[in-house]
């Protein structure tokens, strides 16, 4: 045990000397919270001798980090923002890696009756009509943007979502789930964050499966022409790994409580 402590001290002080190559990647909370990163990162380290340092933030901030050149690549899920990122010359290209899905969570007694809804749009309409509490991320993240687009599609505009029942937490997925749990509110979450969440309280998964709830993750290396210091070669190496069959098997094979979370759909050139 003593040896372990000494080793930890040594590793900490000499850290940078002994370590493999490093790169920084901004990822969304759902990727980290799902636990998938804990599976992939050690494999990346083993295969490529590459330490990928994750900055776990919302999509909005991930994109800002890429624009500022503070990370070497980003892995996010908000198509419009990603395309704007490429168009702005901040990224070289966008590579789709995998998708997961969003689910609607709510109180166990389901006062709005969303469990029997036929579509995501119908489920949200039911919530709006019942005026039952709904917790929104409200942090400009990919999940937040997705949620907003679903409200628009359901015909519940911004003016219809008043604060008496629509609560913007302005926080990450976990913190917002804590808020929903505390208020016994409805919430839209990615499936992985929900399964991993430890403070469920009375909340239950009430609705899932509508194709509009699918959530595409894409990998975007930061443009070395805009930011000459970025580690473009490492970012390319990581990209090759992420679209490889080996990554595909790991992603498809990752389960939580017996449920598959991610579906690998990268196309190899």
């Amino acid at each position, binding site marked *: 045990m003593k040896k372990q402590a000494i080793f*930890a001290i040594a590793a900490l002080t000499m850290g940078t000397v002994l370590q493999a190559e490093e790169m*920084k990647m901004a990822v969304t909370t759902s990727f980290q919270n799902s636990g998938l990163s804990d599976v992939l990162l050690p494999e990346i380290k083993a295969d490529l001798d590459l330490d990928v*340092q994750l900055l776990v933030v919302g999509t909005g901030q991930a994109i800002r980090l890429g624009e500022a050149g*503070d990370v070497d690549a980003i892995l996010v899920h908000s198509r419009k923002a990603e395309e704007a990122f490429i168009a702005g010359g901040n990224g070289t290209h966008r590579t789709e890696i995998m998708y997961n899905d969003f689910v609607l969570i709510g109180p166990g007694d389901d006062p709005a009756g969303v469990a029997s809804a036929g579509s995501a749009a119908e489920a949200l309409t039911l919530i709006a009509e019942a005026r039952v509490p709904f917790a929104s991320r409200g942090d400009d993240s990919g999940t937040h943007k997705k949620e907003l687009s679903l409200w628009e599609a359901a015909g519940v505009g911004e003016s219809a979502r008043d604060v008496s029942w629509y609560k913007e937490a302005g926080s990450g997925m*976990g913190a917002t789930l804590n808020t929903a749990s505390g208020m016994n509110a409805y919430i839209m979450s990615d499936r992985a964050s929900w399964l991993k969440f*430890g403070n469920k309280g009375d909340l239950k998964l009430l609705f899932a499966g509508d194709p509009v709830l699918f959530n595409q993750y894409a990998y975007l290396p930061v443009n070395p022409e805009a930011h000459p*210091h970025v580690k473009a070669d490492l970012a390319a190496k990581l990209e090759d790994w992420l679209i490889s069959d080996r990554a595909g098997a790991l992603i498809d094979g990752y389960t939580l409580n017996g449920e598959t979370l991610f579906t690998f759909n990268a196309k190899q050139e």
Partner: protein
Amino acid sequence: MNEILQGMIEAGRLIVTLDSDLIEISLRSLQVTVTAVLISSAIGLPLGAFLAVKRFRHRRAAIATLNALMGLPPVVVGLVVYLLLSRSGPFGVLGLLFTPSAMIIAQVIILTPLIASISHQTMRDMWAEYHDLLISLNTTRHQRIRALLWDGRRALLTASLAGFGRGIGEVGAIMIVGGNIDHATRVLTTAIALETGKGEFAVALALGFVLIALALAVNWVIHTLSRTEVGERW
């Protein structure tokens, strides 16, 4: 209540099993805050003594400013340091963002006014006491500051420990400039925020207990080593 109990059990388990992640982030917490406290003390303690000894035109304004800076919101400091160190900011070329160095820089900015201000209060009282003797002995300003710092060292230790207390528990600034990267910039406080976000209250609370224990242990060790409360010392 149940969750607090679970937290204590979890804390006990993490410590007894010498959990390697726990050791790593605890050591990093110490590394960041101790370094920041040393730098802040090297600046703040003499600055406090200087302000006590030297009379100049805007001295009162300087002291008032210093006291006001004690209340700097860490989140704002973090944001400003972030923008300065970002690759698109003025110090971007240094590549310091999301490193322990960035966390130390942010903490130095937060801790220096606190340490300098407490130092100034201590030094002001001592200077009132020593004034006539040191003037009579024809000391230079440099000699005065040295004598005050040396003779006030035990009181000044309290200033540094107050800085340590504020630094070790700080999360707002280091979360922003460090990024809470696993195995790189994750420390106890940012880990607590992360676990809370995951709804893992027991683990978060366990880390909280470890943090408190660490803060107490450091204070206790320093006081024991300096024998603050022993015998006829002060």
